[in-house]
Structures are given as structure tokens and as C-alpha cells.
């Protein structure tokens, strides 16, 4: 599903590479944590998978497609097969929960009718039934992240990327979000999550890839934060 082959990424003006000769394979339906201290290069992986940045060396293959050599006009279509959630939720403040999710559908050409059918369903799935018409500022942090998850998942992507999704949430709420991601993973969606939340990693007991200074130092099938 996802293949990194000897990927090196050095940002302009950086003294050392963020990722240094990283190779890693992720199967369909897996749930993988990328862990490591700040600045270790784990977020760069998400950016590479989204083709927000391109590697200096090596190959990134997602869904059987070589992202590195992808033409720029194909990127938008490619991204529709990937859902993404972030630490800062990235919701539109002037739109309700429903509108935020529907917006993601409408801008890729889905009709309002489709949105009316699909959006309430996915909001129900993330546990926001009855709160569709609240604005982000009327929702708690956990609820906002649920909206973000709903938006990422509404298109039924093959892959869900999560960049520190619990970074702004308290431990209990974090656990709830993790349960949600776990449920999404059980539908067959590959989940890649970048985090430094040891609590969560230890509870979930999923595959853990640890990165330090741009290199993979550990890759464990049912790992803990360690």
C-alpha cells in the first residue's frame, strides 16, 4: 500500500536531512505509529505521502503509484484517495460541522444530493449525531477533531494519515479519538499516525516505527512507546 525506498529528504537550508535513507513498507489495512522526538522527521513522512514535499532521493509509492514522479496536475486526484487529520483540526470556522464535511465533497465535484446522503452518515459514525449544525467554536476540541476525522473519511479513502491528531486534546478525549481511528482502521482503511503520545501508543499495541534524527531505529509489530 505504502512503500518508502531509501528516501532522503533535506529541506533547503537545513544542515542535516530530515529523513536519511529511510525504507519502510506498510500493508493494506495496517495501523502504524510513527514515533520519535520533535524534529526527528516523522511529520516529513506525512508530507511525502501527500506529495506536499518531494524527496531528494529515493522513491515513494502510494496505492501502487510512484508519487515522486507524479505530474503535478495529477496530484489533486491522487489526494482524493487519502484522508488526513492534523493536530490543529483545520476546520473552516465560518461553517458548521455538516458544512465542513460537505465542503470537502463539493470541492471535488460531488453534488449536494450526495452530500445530503453521505455527510449525516459519517457524522453519525464519528459520534457527532445531533451536532451537525454547530460551528467549530461551539464544539469541544475532541468534537472538532471528530469533524476533521469525518471530513477525512467521508470520501472513503484507502489511507488515513493522522499528524499528531491528539496533540491538542486531553488524555480521555485522546483515547476516544483513538477508538474512532481504530474503528476506521477496522473498515479496511490503512491508518498512518504520527505521534509522540506514549500513552496512546502503549494502549493500542499496534505496529510502531521509531524515528530518530531521520533514521528508523525500531520497527516493531506490536510495539510500545519504549
Amino acid at each position, binding site marked *: 500500500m505504502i512503500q518508502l525506498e531509501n528516501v532522503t529528504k533535506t529541506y533547503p537550508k537545513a544542515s542535516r536531512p530530515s529523513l536519511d535513507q529511510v525504507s519502510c513498507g506498510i500493508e493494506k489495512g495496517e495501523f502504524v505509529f510513527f514515533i520519535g522526538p520533535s524534529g526527528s522527521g516523522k511529520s516529513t513522512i506525512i508530507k511525502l505521502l501527500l506529495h506536499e514535499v518531494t524527496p531528494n532521493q529515493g522513491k515513494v509509492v502510494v496505492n501502487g503509484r510512484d508519487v515522486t514522479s507524479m505530474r503535478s496536475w495529477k496530484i489533486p486526484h491522487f*489526494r482524493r484517495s487519502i484522508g488526513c487529520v492534523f493536530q490543529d483540526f*483545520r476546520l*473552516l470556522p465560518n461553517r458548521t460541522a455538516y458544512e465542513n464535511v460537505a465542503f470537502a465533497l463539493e470541492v471535488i465535484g460531488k453534488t449536494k444530493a450526495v452530500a445530503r446522503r453521505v455527510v449525516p452518515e459519517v457524522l453519525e459514525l464519528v459520534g457527532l449525531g445531533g451536532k451537525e449544525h454547530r460551528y467549530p467554536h461551539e464544539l469541544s476540541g475532541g468534537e472538532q477533531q471528530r469533524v476533521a476525522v469525518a471530513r477525512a473519511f467521508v470520501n472513503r479513502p484507502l489511507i488515513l494519515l493522522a499528524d499528531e491528531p491528539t496533540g491538542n486534546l486531553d488524555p480521555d478525549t485522546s483515547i476516544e479519538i483513538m477508538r474512532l481511528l481504530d474503528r476506521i482502521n477496522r473498515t479496511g482503511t490503512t491508518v498512518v499516525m504520527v505521534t509522540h503520545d506514549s500513552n496512546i501508543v502503549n494502549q493500542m499495541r499496534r505496529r510502531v516505527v521509531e524515528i530518530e534524527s531521520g533514521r528508523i531505529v525500531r520497527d516493531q509489530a506490536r510495539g510500545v512507546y519504549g
Partner: protein
Amino acid sequence: MQRLKYVLSEVMVGLWRNVTMTIAMIITMAVSLAMLGASGLMYMQVDSMKDFYYKNIEVAIFLDAEVTDAQRSELETQLKGDPLVREVIYESKQQAYEKFKTMYADAPDLVNAVKEGQLPESFRVRLKDPEQFKQIFDKYENTEGIETIVDQRRLLDKIFNILGSVQNMALAAASVMAIAALLLVGNTIQVAAYSKRREVAVMKLVGASNWFIQAPFVLEAVVAGLIGSIIAFAGLAAFKGFLLDGSLRDLTDLLTRLSWGDVLLMFPLMAGVGGLVSAITAWVTLRFYLRV
């Protein structure tokens, strides 16, 4: 259909959100386009004037006061047989005086000061190709009985030079205004892109196509450009209607008349340039501010 509706509503919202900037953009665009249209009109005007006047242009060969009959008739046969010449008309002193009288009928003092017989007789020569004056001049310059040879074209050229430099000034003003307009378009698009940065970020994230992300911004600039061209056209039409056909009537009668058709013809030019230039500017600006 629905996406089109979305794009169009975004355009209206965009123009309204930043309304002072939009107005500034439209005004500079309108002034610049009006200048462009004016110089276009001037160009067509000069062209049609050249057509009109050059067709009737003559070389005047004024004869000496003491020219003999033999010299005159020899010159006439020579001119009539000249391959460069299309037509020769003889104008006697009498005829010259009559023409002078009608030409300056409203200046009786001048007419009275000149006596019949004082004006020289002349041959009015039409050339097959008005450009060949120099050859005629060289050929007959030293012929006995000729006082001077005058090319009327030279006189007209002076007028056309003046019109030409007015046209150039209008073009220069148009391009300076165009630079201002372009900068304003670029700035407006930047502000628009900034105020919609969250939406744009989400659109990129979920994989909205590039044209869909950019279209509202580009169209915003195009709509402003088109409104600018409509205002510029209204300005040109007002100029034609109130000034050229109104208070400046006497002046314009001297030149060839500017037709409404010509003025109308400037609209597609201005709209095309206004729309296209705005679109390109907006698109280029977005290349820098909405990196994928």
C-alpha cells in the same frame, strides 16, 4: 452546474469582500483601457484620413511670373507624357485668384490686399504614386519657367505627425496605467488568496483540482477587467457623443468624421485586452501564492 454556481458565488463574494480595492482596480483598468481605446481610434482615424487626403493630394508646380507661352506648353506636354504622372491640371492666375477668394471669404482684408494677377499660375499634378515626389522634384527642379515645386503631402505629414505623437502619448499613458492596473490586480488577488487561505488549504488537502481552486480568483480579476472595459467604453462613447459631435464639432469637421462603428469596434478590443490581461496576471500571481 453546481460547481459553476459555487465558483460564481465565490467571485461575487470575493469582489465584494475587498470592495475598495476592487473599485481601485476597476478604475485604473478603465482609465488604462480608455487610453488604449482612444489610441486605437486615433490610429484608425489617421489611417482613414491618410486614405482620404492622399487620394486628393497634388504636387503644385508654380510658374515664374515671366514664364513664356512656349515654356508653359512645353512643360505641359512634358508633364502629360511623364510616366510618373497620372493627371495634370492647369490653374491660371485668374483661377488661382478665384480659389483664393472663396478660401478666404471670411477675411476680406486679406482678399483685398491681394490683386488679381499677383498669384502665380501653376500646374496641379497628381502622381500615380504619391511617394514619388522626390523624382518629380529632381526632374523638373531646373526646368526653365518654374518657380517652385510644392508637395502638399509634406504639409499633411506635419498634421499626421502631430496626430501620431498624440497617439503615442495616449499609448504611453495607457501602458503606465496598465502597469498600475496590473499591480492592483496582483495585489487584490493576493489579498483574496490570503483571506481564503483556510478554504484553499482544505481544498488542496482533500484534492480539489487546481482549476477549481484558482477559477474564482482568476474570474474575479476577469470580471473586474470586464467592468473596467465597459466603463472605458462608456467613457469613449461619451467623449465621442459630447465632445467630438458636440462642442468640438468644428474641429472634427476639418478631419474625417469618427463613426460610431469605429467607436463600437473598440469595445471588443478593450474587453479582450482587459479580460485577458487580468486573467493572466491573476493566474501568474496564484502560481506564486497558491503553490500546490
